[in-house]
């Protein structure tokens, strides 16, 4: 026996610690030390050593007579032998039989976006991500369409064992810490996570230390973001143009502007106004005219405001939006010895919003460590802290009362400031009800949402015998959130508000997960690979919230902006708590025969405290099979095919997610003091009253998602080309949602119930290519294509249609679920052109056989003609129906990469094709509700006798019907966007100055967008329009609606990656 020594290095010659070196056919082996060195006793010259390391191609070397063997490992381009975590255990990627997308974290991190969601967009087939441009805004990540609707389609995210769910859950995660990421898309892979896996699972592990020398990395960038398109590209700017529109709609306004309808005159002052006495007794025809002889010295705030006209028009968009910087810095440290490794990072990110005063800042730190004190024991921990600060646009996204919508509503004749430098407003009658957008933005600057989050995990592993491993893991997620909000008087508005108010909301979440698993993993007779996993898990979520508001603060300056009743009036106070517990048992069996046949079974049983005893437990089975065809003898001639595997899976996942607390119980009391309290004795003292304010549903049970998946994985030409194709069908039964009850149930919050069944069918295709064109020139490309079709297949109970978001005060119902149609379908009338003539009207009237009855209420020449859907010859409620579908036919992500010597170039394109957008903004931009500013199109494209081809209805203030929900709001929302283009250069430093590698890059996001959509940005986040059921943000109930959406910006950044 003698000893062989050697050193293992990677492709660039760096030492590789921790590499397994084994003598083939024996259990004799060792691992390399921090310098990559190993020494191993061998018996004879015929011995073969096997050198393996995750992510690298294994090598087998016959020792021969050598005593020293140096090995350089090459990265395994196929990465198929990579181990990935798919369900409490690791699995070789090549053995996966479910639909699992493994996202390349390094590729993800080439995109320098502030949040994880933005980076993920388009990176994996079957994943759709929507994010608004609002800094720090959470992303809606949807895996294979909408799987559930109870306010939570967010996938379960498991970060180092910590389970997180919720749309903003990931905003606090520093994406640079991600080392690996897997997305479990179908039930056969995800059902091991049972109860919470319904919307898919994203498993993230953060960077772990490697044994070896201390490694220091720095990644940072600075950049500038600019608004891509603003309302100043869409809306009228010249006040005279606006006056022309207003006068056409309301001839009375000609008196205000003077001149005539074609040549209005902008007065010097628009406020105050005077009344022109027409001399009649009742003065009903008196008109408003601009005051002349305004004495500016009489200005007095707030009682005598004076506002000069801005004759050239205020560009309100420009007044609120400007280029904004973005920067991020991350420092990472990692290292360790053979039995103790660590990885630590600190990060800082600061994204200023293109809308003034909005921003997102994040400070984060992470420490991961791992110890192997003996051969049998591994213990480790991860801990991350992040603090973020965010200022949103006032009112939030998707709200008529937000800053962006104010830039649409506000008339351009209004300057930003009045003659004394106070905010000006549209105070004149006949002007808009807008709030000054600059005031709106500025006064919101201290409404800072502060979030503190601590995620921690400790785990221990004990190898009872080589094949049997016990693991216990405890994770905790602690979150503190504080949100203040101040409101200020607005004397400059037409709708004056003269009092201030201040409120605070304080929330804490404490969630913990304790998981214990036992895993048996053994290969028998060299061909039977068996893994059995069993486990138990307990989860508890604790939520606490306090909220209070005071009014009429005598002092509202920041240093005294507190809830203090000595100088304010009490308004409201509330406090609530919620605890949800989950307990689960699960088992999984994976069997593989000779690398050819794979089967996997999973069974999980979940119980939740949110359901009552009888419905509490759900059982979620799954099974999948795989056949590696390429290993069959008959395939051996096809040498171009390195791997070909056919997969099929079936499984059920569950959903118990209910946004509101204690849904099983009828809840009595009152939502607020005023809800059921009443001054029964007169005066101003309320007698307490109690009422049923929230319906409970004791019968609520598990929502079940049955999914079938058939997939194919292929690796061609030694892994140069990879292909993953999946077709799937997901059937969701007993969907949990809280649609309004019939009106006779009153206005108590409706309970969450099992209301419907839904189906998603679709396919995902991923193709990637990686290769060298010449020695210096490399090329890679990956294409992700996804298609799904969503359909409501059944509504439980009695309703034939459900209006999930209730009734919008402006439109009635705009959003419907109806059997045979996709979820969140748009609802309204279908327009059938514009009535061109009396003859057309007469013919329409006669369509029901009775020429004396009107075809359509409010019909007139130049107005929209509604289509008679039920063909009864007249228009009524029965002609309302589905008018649009927000779901895309196809989404596409295409990454193109080139590298030449030290240069690298990548471009990422994203496209969404075939989705409709409900452009709610048109209520203002095209129909001018509340005398809002309007689109330039209104001036050029409105129907008139001289413009009979105009696509917009005649300008007519009496037309109260044009703005009803109809196809006039629905647009094709398809787009193609160059999401990201990067050019990098790696300095050939060698190792001088202690620098191992140094790369500089420039990157632009959102370089161009090709779309026919007329609004600001076709990439919408889901919004929250109007009054929602239960005050909840019904995200997926409102897919595809655009109202005051903060658009994405274009950014240019320059950055550096350095490794020391």
């Amino acid at each position, binding site marked *: 026996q003698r000893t062989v020594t050697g050193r293992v290095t990677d492709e660039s010659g760096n030492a590789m610690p921790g590499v397994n070196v084994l003598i083939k056919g024996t259990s004799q082996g060792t691992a390399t030390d921090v310098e990559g060195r190993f020494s191993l006793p061998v018996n004879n010259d015929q011995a073969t050593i096997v050198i393996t390391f995750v992510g690298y191609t294994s090598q087998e070397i016959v020792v021969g007579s050598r005593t020293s063997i140096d090995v350089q490992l090459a990265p395994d381009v196929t990465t198929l032998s990579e181990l990935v975590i798919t369900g409490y255990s690791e699995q070789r990627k090549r053995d996966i039989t479910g639909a699992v997308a493994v996202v390349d974290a390094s590729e993800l991190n080439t995109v320098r976006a502030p949040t994880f969601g933005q980076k993920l967009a388009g990176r994996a087939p079957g994943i759709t991500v929507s994010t608004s441009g609002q800094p720090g805004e959470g992303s809606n990540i949807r895996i294979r369409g909408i799987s559930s609707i109870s306010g939570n389609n967010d996938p379960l995210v498991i970060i180092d064992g910590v389970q997180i769910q919720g749309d903003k859950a990931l905003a606090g995660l520093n994406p640079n810490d991600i080392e690996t990421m897997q997305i479990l898309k179908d039930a056969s892979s995800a059902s091991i996570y049972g109860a919470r896996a319904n919307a898919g699972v994203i498993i993230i592990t953060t960077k772990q230390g490697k044994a070896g020398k201390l490694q220091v990395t720095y990644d940072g960038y600075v950049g500038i973001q600019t608004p891509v398109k603003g309302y100043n590209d869409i809306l009228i700017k010249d006040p005279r143009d606006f006056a022309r529109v207003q006068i056409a*709609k*309301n001839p*009375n306004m000609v008196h205000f502007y003077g001149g005539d309808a074609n040549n209005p005159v902008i007065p010097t002052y628009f406020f105050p*106004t005077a*009344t022109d006495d027409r001399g009649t*007794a009742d*003065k*009903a*025809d008196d008109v408003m005219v601009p005051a002349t002889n305004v004495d500016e010295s009489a200005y007095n705030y707030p009682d005598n405001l004076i506002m000069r006209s801005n004759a050239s028009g205020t560009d309100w968009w420009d007044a609120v939006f400007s280029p904004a910087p973005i920067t991020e810095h991350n420092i990472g440290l990692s290292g360790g010895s053979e039995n103790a490794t660590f990885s630590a990072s600190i990060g800082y990110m600061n994204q200023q919003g293109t809308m003034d005063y909005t921003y997102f800042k994040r400070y984060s730190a992470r420490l991961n460590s791992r110890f192997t004190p003996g051969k049998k024991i591994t213990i480790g921990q991860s801990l991350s802290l992040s603090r973020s600060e965010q200022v949103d646009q006032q009112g939030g996204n998707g709200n008529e009362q937000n800053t962006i919508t104010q830039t649409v509503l506000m008339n351009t004749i209004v300057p930003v400031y009045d003659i004394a430098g106070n905010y000006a407003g549209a105070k004149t*009658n*006949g002007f808009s009800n807008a709030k000054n957008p600059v005031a709106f933005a500025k006064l919101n600057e201290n409404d800072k949402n502060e979030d503190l989050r601590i995620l921690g995990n400790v785990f221990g592993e004990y190898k009872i015998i080589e094949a049997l491993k016990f693991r216990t893991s405890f994770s905790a997620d602690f979150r503190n959130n504080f949100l203040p909000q101040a409101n200020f008087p607005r004397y400059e508005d037409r709708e004056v*508000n*003269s009092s201030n*108010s201040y409120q605070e909301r304080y929330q804490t979440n404490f969630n913990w997960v304790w998981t214990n698993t036992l895993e048996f993993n053994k290969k028998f007779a060299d061909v039977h690979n068996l893994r059995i996993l069993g486990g138990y898990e307990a989860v508890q979520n604790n939520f606490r919230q306090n909220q209070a*508001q005071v009014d009429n603060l005598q002092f509202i300056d920041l240093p005294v902006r507190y809830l203090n009743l000595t100088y304010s009036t009490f*308004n409201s106070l509330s406090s*609530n*708590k919620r605890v949800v*517990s*989950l*307990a689960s048992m699960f088992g999984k069996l994976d069997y593989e025969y000779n690398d050819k046949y794979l089967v996997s079974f999973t069974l999980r049983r979940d*119980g939740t*405290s949110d359901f009552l005893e009888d419905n509490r437990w759900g059982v979620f089975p799954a099974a999948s099979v795989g056949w590696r065809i390429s290993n069959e003898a008959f395939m051996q001639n096809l040498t171009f095919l390195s791997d070909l595997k056919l997969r099929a899976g079936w499984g059920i996942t569950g959903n118990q997610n209910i946004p509101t607390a*204690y849904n099983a119980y*009828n809840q*009595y009391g*009152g939502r*607020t*003091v*005023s809800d059921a*309290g*009443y*001054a*029964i*004795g*007169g*005066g*101003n003292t*309320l007698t307490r*009253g109690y*009422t049923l304010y*929230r319906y409970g549903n004791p019968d609520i049970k598990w929502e079940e998602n049955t999914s079938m998946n058939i997939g194919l994985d292929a690796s061609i030409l030694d892994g140069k080309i990879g292909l993953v194709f999946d077709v799937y069908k997901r059937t969701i039964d007993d969907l949990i949602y809280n649609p*309004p009850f*019939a*009106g*006779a*149930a*009153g*206005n108590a919050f409706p309970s969450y119930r099992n209301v419907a069944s839904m189906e998603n069918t679709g396919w995902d295709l991923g193709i990637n290519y990686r290769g060298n064109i010449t020695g210096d020139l490399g090329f890679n490309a990956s294409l992700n294509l996804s298609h799904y079709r969503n359909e409501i297949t059944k509504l439980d109970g*009695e*309703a*034939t249609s459900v209006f999930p978001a209730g009734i919008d*005060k*402006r439109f009635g*119902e705009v959003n419907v679920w109806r059997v045979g149609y996709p979820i969140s379908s748009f609802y309204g009338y279908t327009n059938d052109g514009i009535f061109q003539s009396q003859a057309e009207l007469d013919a329409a009237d006669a369509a029901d056989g009775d020429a004396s009855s009107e075809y359509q209420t409010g019909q007139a020449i130049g107005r929209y003609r509604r289509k008679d859907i039920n063909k009864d010859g007249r228009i*009524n*409620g029965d002609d309302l129906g589905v008018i649009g579908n927000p779901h895309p036919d196809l989404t596409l992500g295409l990454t193109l990469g080139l590298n030449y010597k030290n240069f690298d170039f990548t471009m990422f394109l994203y496209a969404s094709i075939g989705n409709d957008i409900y452009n709610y903004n048109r209520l203002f931009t095209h129909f001018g509700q509340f005398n809002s500013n309007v689109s330039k199109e209104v001036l050029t494209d409105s129907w008139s006798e001289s413009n009979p081809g105009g696509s917009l209805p005649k300008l007519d203030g*009496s037309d*109260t*019907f044009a703005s009803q929900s109809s196809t006039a709001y629905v647009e094709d929302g398809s787009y193609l966007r160059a999401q990201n283009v990067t050019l990098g250069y790696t300095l050939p430093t060698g190792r001088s100055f202690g620098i191992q590698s140094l790369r500089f890059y420039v990157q632009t996001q959102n370089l161009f967008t090709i779309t026919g959509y007329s609004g600001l940005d076709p990439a919408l986040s889901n919004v929250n329009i109007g009054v929602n059921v239960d005050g909840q943000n019904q995200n997926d109930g409102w897919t595809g609606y655009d109202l005051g959406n903060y658009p994405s910006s274009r950014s240019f950044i320059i950055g550096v990656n350095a490794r020391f």
Partner: protein
Amino acid sequence: SSFLDEKPQGFLSEETLKSEDGVDAALIGAYSLLDGMNLDNNNTWSANPWNWILGSVPTDDAYKGSEQTDFPEITQLEIYQWSAGNAIMNDKWVQSYEGVKRANNTLKLMSQTDGIAGDKQKTIEGEARFLRAYYHFELYKVWGNVPYFTEADGENYIKSNVGVTPLANAIADVEASIPLLPETQKERGRVDRFAARAFLGKMYLYQDNVDAAIATKAKEQLDIVVNAKKLAPCLKDVFQVPGENHEEVLFSVQASTNDGGNSRNANWLNQLAFPAGPQFGCCGFHQPSQDLVNAFKVDANGLPDTDFDTSDDADLNATSDFVDPRIDLTIGRDGVPFLDWGVHAPNWIRDRTFSGPYSSKKHIHYKTDGTSSGGWNNNAYNGINYPIIRLADAMLLLAEAEVILGNLNRAEELVNLIRTRAGACAQGPASDDITGAAVITTDIDNPAITWAKYKVEPYPTGTFVANGPEFAKNAVRMERRLELALEGHRLFDLRRWGVAADVLNKFVNKTKASRTYYSDADAYDNVKHRWYPIPQAQIEANTLNGERILKQNDPW
């Protein structure tokens, strides 16, 4: 496992309410819906008990007001372009049924609760049954064919409206409540036997084809009330915080301010109907019509035009015409002091060419009374109670019954009581010359009144008999219009009288000249417009086995 047995937190269960106090608290909850609002951030405009959207704007009393582009759905109601998809109506449906549900839940809870004192039990049942009837009556007035829900329906909220008799059911409930209710209640907000009788009288007269037998039943109830109660000295008193619980007010919505309820118990739903002037900010809806202004004209004898048809009247000339002083307690006019807010001025109106120069006034508080803080328009959140039924209403209903029964002298006497009170006071000057303090009401002949020639007189004794029953009927109806103007009754009165088409179409035709958008108006049809279209959302929500069982009112 016990790990999964989470005890619910932060709310009461039905069990906790099973005591006398708990049942009463549930009853208070039923009362609290009288203001049409329960949810904190829900502007349930059409559920306003003042009913100006559904009962006043679509009549000859008022225009939508504000400006063209603000709530065009209300304009559609105003000019009879009704449709099931009109979004504004649904709140009335839901909120009224919320009231029904709360009343029913009180009854259900009471039946499951032991140990409530017998008297108390009777009272609670009487109050709850009255409230249930009231909320259904609100639904009936608007839609006619509405299902009636009782505690026996449990948690079934889907019901057909084919062949329903909601008014008869409501009448039966109120009839049953009368023996249960006490003569008087210690707390002014609670319904007592007088209020129930008055309301019962009203409901009888809201039936179709009121004949002598029905009128007799109405008279029986109303006589008791009218004989027992007195009118307030001045009409304005009952619309002001200090006088709002005068005995004239038989039953009202108790509004309150600065009560910790974020202004939601104040007159939240009226905030749109304040003048759009600088004091209030928003928005000038519910502007009185020229026709209503003209209706207040009186002749030199202080009496209305004897044809009681205002559609052919010349517009009021404030400097030369005599006018009923109630005009300035009801309507804000330029040049006339607006309570203690100063003189109503042109800039208080958003767009006079759109909807005229007038403001509604009854629901406006005294500046000195102040408002409730919180909300987006805190200048409007006052504590003025809405009188659901007041003695003047009951008297005029009784007068209607008396006319039907041929007792014209009694009808005249009742009308004259109202007219006499009308002459008792008028809007005073904005400030006293000597003290500078606001004088809100004063004698009608106060020399400081320069903006109008006030005059109002009772009909000379025997006028009704001399002119016959048709005259008497119209005189009573005219008086009802004047006295109860802008209180949300007009459309429902016109409908039950069967004269809506006649009156409203004349009004529309005349108004086309001054309000341009009236040229778009559909003709009011006594059959078609007898009921509003049921909100489409409710049609869709009330399905059984895939069948829509809530039938839309014909021909909507």
